[in-house]
């Protein structure tokens, strides 16, 4: 820790599950000192309720979902309901440059930890509040998870086959959109602080972030009055455009052909040059018209070959193609491996595993992942004594009366 773009940045997180903690994680990967705050009474939901757990055995320090969102961080436990809890939380917040939180809107203020409260003790604090619906408005306090929000944002209605019910996107899809926008927002506030010395409050609604990813469909509705519908893997003006079965079980290769040149290259890779001038497939309009027939022909060919062969043979011939990689295959993917996406870490309970690095690589300030996720309360002593200057006696007292716990 303590190098990289954010080497002098101190962040305290009153945040749980995915969106809030991942914003902190992106900063921690680039050198920020990030303290994740929870308590034994209210542990992070990912630790408590969400698989995977190492060896399928639940436990706060065995959670993979918590692990993937919290590497390179420190962890403390403050019981906000204990008599000294709020004061301690405030003291920690005053130590930080940035506080993030994803409670229900209004909760932090009710606890005495709202932006105005924190500003009173730390005038240049940056506070990032993130939640589903935003800090105000009629639905602000309505609870929800990312897996619900992906439906409200419109993603569910445009995913799946026409003749089937729509399908759900995996996990809290929209949370992860909120993470990208959240880091941008936070860094925007840091730039402002660097220029003016002033902190500020950021209200980041994941719903509003998700909607940004739907814009072309929303414009098509407002301008053309057309409601976009799910259409499998079809594309308006590309064919073939689908995933095709490959040799082996549940193995698929994605192939997309946008123009005549790519079509010719596909036919030659398939060693079926006769198809190029076949009247059913000669033009893009014809290929779209006879797409189902075309899919059958491509599938017959693809199912005789392993996905990796198809991917490479087609790419080497200039056809856009890809393997539908399983999650296991991602760990072997030479591009992801080369980028150091899977950073090896060691954890006292889970043992050796991997943290996941960022999708951007800096030439001069590379990310550095050097610590697995913290166990619950692992850094109480270090944070409270070293960072806040607490005496041994005071620390002991707070541990005994349950403020730290």
């Amino acid at each position: 820790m303590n190098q990289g773009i954010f080497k002098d940045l101190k962040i305290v997180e009153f945040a749980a599950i995915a969106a809030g903690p991942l914003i902190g994680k992106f900063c921690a990967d680039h050198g920020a000192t990030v303290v994740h705050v929870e308590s034994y009474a209210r542990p992070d939901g990912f630790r408590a309720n969400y698989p995977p757990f190492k060896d399928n055995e639940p436990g706060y320090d065995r959670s993979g979902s918590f692990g993937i969102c919290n590497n390179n961080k420190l962890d403390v436990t403050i019981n906000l309901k204990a008599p000294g809890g709020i004061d301690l939380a405030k003291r920690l917040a005053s130590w930080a440059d940035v506080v993030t939180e994803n409670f229900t809107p209004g909760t932090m203020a009710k606890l005495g930890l709202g932006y105005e409260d924190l500003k009173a003790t730390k005038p240049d604090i940056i506070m990032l509040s993130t939640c589903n619906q935003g800090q105000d408005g009629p639905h602000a306090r309505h609870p929800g998870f990312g897996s619900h929000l992906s439906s409200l944002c419109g993603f569910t209605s445009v995913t799946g086959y026409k003749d089937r019910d729509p399908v759900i996107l995996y996990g809290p899809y929209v949370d992860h959109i909120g993470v990208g926008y959240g880091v941008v927002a936070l860094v925007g506030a840091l730039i402002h602080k660097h220029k003016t010395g002033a902190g500020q409050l950021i209200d980041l609604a994941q719903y509003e972030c998700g909607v940004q990813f739907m814009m072309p469909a929303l414009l098509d509705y407002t301008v053309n009055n057309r409601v976009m519908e799910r259409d499998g893997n079809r594309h308006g003006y590309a064919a073939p455009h689908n995933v095709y079965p490959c040799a082996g079980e549940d193995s698929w290769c994605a192939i997309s052909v946008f123009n005549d040149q790519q079509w010719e290259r596909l036919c030659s890779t398939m060693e079926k040059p006769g198809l190029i001038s076949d009247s059913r497939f000669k033009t893009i309009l014809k290929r779209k018209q006879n797409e189902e027939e075309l899919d059958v022909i491509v599938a017959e060919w693809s199912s005789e070959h392993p996905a990796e062969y198809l991917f490479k043979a087609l790419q080497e011939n200039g056809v856009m193609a890809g393997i539908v990689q399983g999650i296991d295959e991602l760990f072997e993917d030479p591009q992801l491996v080369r980028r150091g996406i899977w950073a090896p870490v060691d954890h006292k309970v889970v043992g050796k595993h991997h943290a996941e690095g960022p999708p951007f690589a800096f030439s001069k300030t590379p990310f550095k992942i050097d610590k697995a996720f913290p166990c619950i309360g692992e850094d109480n002593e270090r944070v409270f004594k070293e960072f806040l200057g607490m005496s041994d006696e005071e620390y002991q007292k707070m541990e005994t009366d349950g403020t730290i716990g």
Partner: protein
Amino acid sequence: MAEKVKVLENCRVLDLSNELGFLCGKILGDLGADVIKIEKPGGDPSRNLGTYYKDRPDPERNLYWFSYNHNKRGITLDIETKSGADIFKQLVQTADIVIETFPPGFMEGLGLDYDTLSQINPGLIITSITPFGQTGPYKDYTGADLVLTAMSGFMSLVGDPDRPPVRVTLPQSYMWTGMHAATGTIMAYYHREITGEGQHVDVSAQASLLWACSIAPSFYDYNGEVPKRAGGFITGRSITGAKMRAVSPCKDGYVNYIIYGGPAGIRTNVRMTEWMDSKGMAPDHLKQKDWKKFNIAAVTQEEIDEIERSNDDFLLTTTKSEFFEKVLEKDMLGYPVATSEDTMKDEQLRSRDLWKTLAHEDLGEEIVYPSFFAKFSDIACNLWRRAPKIGEHNEEIYGELGYQVQDLLNMKRAKII
């Protein structure tokens, strides 16, 4: 209240990107950066993606272009000509950031790579966005949305188990890539503000979309489990391997209702049973259930199936809006499966003033856009200007560089702009 500040006001961005990078420049523009979209003479091929205003296939009416190129000015310039490259270098001297999506090595071939340009402008940040990254065995491979979605692993998690995996019909990979490119770029800009040091940012679309796989990689990394597509169901919530329905048909479409645990989940389950009971549709097994003891992390498929059968029968009797009203009123988890129409009518987004209009004077119409991605107390995040027409700001921007109207005419004749 003091006027909000454009935090990136003095930051000039030269945006050479295609659809992989549109959102990157747009996000920087939202925060007030002076983003100049540079297109080839005649217009960018990306002006033909998606749909058109009133279905008229015209590069000046492309809705995909409108969606992600507002908050930018636009010029035309052929950087593949010597004269064009020379003008580009002049622009670079005035710029802070260059965004490009050419194949690796292409800019180097034009003498416009990071090493060369950073000699002209030492603090320059170049963000290079490609399907797989600047180095590695697949660096020269190409891919549009379908291929990127497949290679990122995201596709393996989406679709019915008895059908091939599917992508989202509205391509998502370009948005993921553009957003993460913005994240990396603004981080590099912050670093430069503090240290004066510029750098090269290498963004991979495949890696950007990897985060859409959420926590799935940890299942494999921890326990060797490979999460798979499960249709309208969610997996990975119980150590028994039970899956929970997330998409249920209702009277006029679908709703997203999932059996959850934790305080909010249990409250939801109890109130759903009460709601069903008020309509005489709650079976005894639900009414008698001790929800306080319900443990989502250990629940079996049998128990889930029994609950869902009754819930699903009930949901078929409600509409999307009845369901939405009820979950809002009773503080329950769940949302309608919204369509574009539902999103544009959503009360919360309206009351937050998300939507603002921009005049498209040529079309004689105002078009609605989201006006921010976050609300800040001190800095401005806003909708500043509509997407540029082809070469709309040539005179303005080349004028700043000292070119006269006659020069522009000559450059146009020479097909440089």
